[in-house]
């Protein structure tokens, strides 16, 4: 069957022993222009056609579509700490019609994190899903970027095995500013006791629900940073919020093997002027306000659970910067990460 114009929007039954299915939505040639995948899909679900017709296939159909119509190969993956400017980066990339940007698509994140699906099926299904969402929409697209949900970095090794040649960045920010953002508006993964498919903290549920919101969110955020730190390799790059927005058309673009034209940079600069999640509002820096809100429990939680990983990320980023200045950021042949970052016991 041809699936031109259709996009997979949900996996059904991928968590059980039975067959897995895929729900599709008609999108035609519409681009993904909203801040998140779900927002674009919700608008499409309002079309009369999608209100009347639903479309569900077996997962095998996704594989057949992959074979018949392979999508674009991803130009880069974007992982992040959450509340750290990652949506700004995806909005800037979306501003260019040559870019296809899939931002936090549920079916991709679910398959990436689905440790219960045995390999190699999990990697294969993930490649099928990435391919299906990587179909050209307007026909002008030449680059394909995927931004993952923040806890998906816990599955970084599995993603790297499925896509070993795709460059990636991990974006992070001052831990206190991130934690305060979550205390103001908690995300599901940062809320103690709220069950999602992500198990970021290895502790009994009784212990989890007894944790303060500060401690729980800080432990999840810390774990996310730790996973990025442990997963850094020759294809990966660390980006601090303070480097935005210039890093997107600078070092990150070079990591992705992309060169943006002056006109494209102007479009991205323009996109960066607006609030990423509320694109009609001008962006206003809120870092100072957040830092003023840090309570004593929040400060303690940041210091204990996030700061050590943040400082290590900063150390690695600084070392990588030194390497780039030396013109040598090639991966260490024996160990993966670039030589200065390689912590292997045997010399590079």
């Amino acid at each position: 069957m041809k699936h031109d114009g259709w996009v997979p929007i949900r996996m059904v039954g991928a968590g059980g022993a039975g067959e897995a299915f895929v729900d599709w939505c008609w999108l035609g040639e519409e681009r993904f222009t909203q801040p998140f995948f779900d927002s674009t899909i919700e608008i499409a679900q309002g079309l009369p056609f999608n209100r009347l017709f639903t479309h569900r296939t077996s997962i095998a159909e996704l594989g057949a579509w992959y074979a018949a119509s392979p999508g674009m190969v991803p130009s880069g993956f974007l992982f992040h700490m959450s509340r750290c400017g990652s949506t700004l980066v995806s909005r800037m990339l979306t501003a260019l019609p040559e870019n296809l940007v899939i931002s936090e698509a549920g079916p991709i994140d679910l398959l990436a994190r689905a440790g219960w699906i045995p390999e190699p099926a999990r990697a294969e299904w993930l490649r099928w899903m990435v391919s299906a969402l990587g179909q050209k929409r307007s026909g002008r697209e030449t680059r394909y970027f995927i931004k993952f949900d923040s806890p998906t970095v816990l599955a970084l090794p599995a993603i790297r095995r499925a896509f070993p040649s795709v460059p990636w960045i991990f974006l992070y920010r001052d831990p206190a500013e991130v934690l305060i953002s979550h205390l103001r508006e908690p995300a599901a993964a940062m809320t103690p006791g709220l069950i999602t498919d992500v198990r970021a903290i290895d502790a009994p549920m009784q212990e989890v629900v007894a944790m303060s919101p500060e401690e729980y969110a800080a432990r999840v955020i810390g774990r996310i940073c730790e996973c990025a730190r442990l997963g850094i390799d020759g294809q990966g790059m660390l980006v601090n919020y303070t480097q935005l927005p210039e890093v997107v058309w600078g070092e990150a673009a070079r990591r992705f093997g992309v060169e943006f034209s002056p006109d494209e940079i102007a479009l991205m600069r323009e996109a960066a002027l607006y609030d990423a999640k509320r694109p009609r509002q001008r962006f206003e820096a809120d870092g100072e306000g957040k830092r003023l809100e840090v309570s004593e429990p929040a400060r303690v939680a940041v210091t204990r659970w996030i700061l050590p990983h943040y400082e290590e990320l900063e150390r690695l980023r600084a070392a990588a910067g030194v390497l780039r200045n030396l013109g040598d950021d090639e991966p260490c042949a024996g160990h993966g990460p670039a030589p200065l970052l390689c912590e292997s016991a045997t010399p590079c």
Partner: protein
Amino acid sequence: MPALTSAGTEAELFAMVLALGRERGIELTVAELEEIVRANRRAWFERWLVR
């Protein structure tokens, strides 16, 4: 007949679907189509709730 995906309103879509049905000897009613839309909407909300 234009593609069903091009329908701008539910009424327009229903008219096309009813015509296609008649061509194939299937008699549908507007009420039946409305019930399908309602059922799909319920299923959509339910899936979001258990996501």
